[in-house]
């Protein structure tokens, strides 16, 4: 959280420098068709591999006898996720539960990157690796959060088709909730409802973590003696945000998939 690199730049330059991705191209558009966000991809993949390695080690060494510390830790998380899924999702959990676990752990690790001092890795990459920009928090990048929410969106349709059939889904989409006579309104309402799910999922996570990162950057602009207290306060508050946002993303995923998996026709008759 040093303002050292900011000394040569104006605060505005410092902040905008921090908000630039390490990209494969120089497309500055809001939606880019050509830019790869290399930093986001690398960090998120590495974090995901850390999660998978840790859990895979626990899975290989797993014992039904007295568990070790790693197994205990992994079991706590798995039981927590499994119970969350069990509470709302009725049916075969063999996909939804691992799906929710991956989301929870991955998003949690993404968010944890926000707790790394904002200047540490960018300075390292700038001076040692010679990379101009670097953003280390994958969840503060819309690309990452939308990748997750669009995957969830896909599985919402998957489970809807599975439980209701394509015809049943189309019928519900066209006639629910106002009846067949108000078909256009049904379409509008349902479209908004369906689109709201991936948008809210992705933007909630992104918004929280982007704002968190921005505040850390602003704190880093303060003189060093004034950084300690706001930095510590925001950090402590952020520990909560990091966990909470990962939990919210997982819980909403489970809720959306459970809703998709319920067959309304079967329940009414």
């Amino acid at each position, binding site marked *: 959280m040093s303002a050292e690199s900011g000394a040569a730049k104006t605060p505005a330059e410092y902040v905008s420098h921090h*908000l630039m*991705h390490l*990209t494969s191209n120089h*497309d*500055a*558009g*809001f*939606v*880019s*068709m*050509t*830019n*790869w*966000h290399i930093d*986001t*991809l690398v960090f*998120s*993949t590495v974090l*995901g591999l850390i*999660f*998978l390695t840790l*859990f*895979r080690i*626990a*899975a*290989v060494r*797993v*014992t*039904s*006898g007295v568990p070790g510390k790693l*197994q205990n830790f*992994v*079991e706590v998380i*798995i*039981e927590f996720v*499994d119970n969350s899924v069990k509470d709302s999702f009725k049916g075969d959990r*063999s*996909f939804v*539960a*691992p*799906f929710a*676990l*991956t989301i929870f752990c*991955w998003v949690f690790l993404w968010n944890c990157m926000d707790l790394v001092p904002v200047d540490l890795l960018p300075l390292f990459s700038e001076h040692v690796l010679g990379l101009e920009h670097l953003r280390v928090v994958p969840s503060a*990048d*819309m*690309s*990452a959060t*939308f*990748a*997750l929410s*669009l*995957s969830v969106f896909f599985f919402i349709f998957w489970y809807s088709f599975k439980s209701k059939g394509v015809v049943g889904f189309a019928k519900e989409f066209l006639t629910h909730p106002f009846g067949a006579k108000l078909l256009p309104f049904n379409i509008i309402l349902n479209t908004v409802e369906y689109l709201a799910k991936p948008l809210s999922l992705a933007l909630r996570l992104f918004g929280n973590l*982007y704002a968190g990162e921005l505040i850390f950057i602003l704190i880093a602009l303060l003189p060093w003696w004034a950084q300690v207290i706001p930095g510590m306060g925001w950090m402590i508050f952020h520990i909560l945000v990091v966990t909470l946002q990962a939990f919210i993303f997982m819980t909403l995923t489970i809720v959306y998939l459970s809703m998709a998996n319920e067959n309304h026709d079967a329940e009414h008759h």
Partner: protein
Amino acid sequence: MQASIPSIVGQMIVFAIFVWFTMKFVWPPITKALDERRARIVDGLAAAEKGQKALIEASSRGDETLRAARTQAQEIVAAANKQATQMVEQARADAESEKARIVAAGHSEVVREVTQAKDALRKQVGELAVAGASKILKREINAGAHAELIAELAAKV
């Protein structure tokens, strides 16, 4: 701030691989172990309950056996005591009768010896008397003719 379509697609592919890996290699072994442990705990609890029941049963049976043994021991001790008392009584009775017999035997011996001594004395006194009388008479008295008289005399002494 930028949303990058290639990054989204790339992330989705990475995510799909991660989910597949979790689903295949992480979730099943761990949940299986959890279920196994749950089953073992259930079995263990049932076994513990059974064991406790068996323990209570065994201890009550042990108590019963102990009680029976104690009663039996008391009976045996009582019987032995009784027998001992009887034996002592018997011995005492035997000793008493033996004593009586010995005393009686001694007594009769004494009586017999006294009688013998008296008889001997009488005889000697009779002989003395006869000798005395013969000396006094200074004549020969037929001892054979007067034996009846001497015996009569001796009986009177």
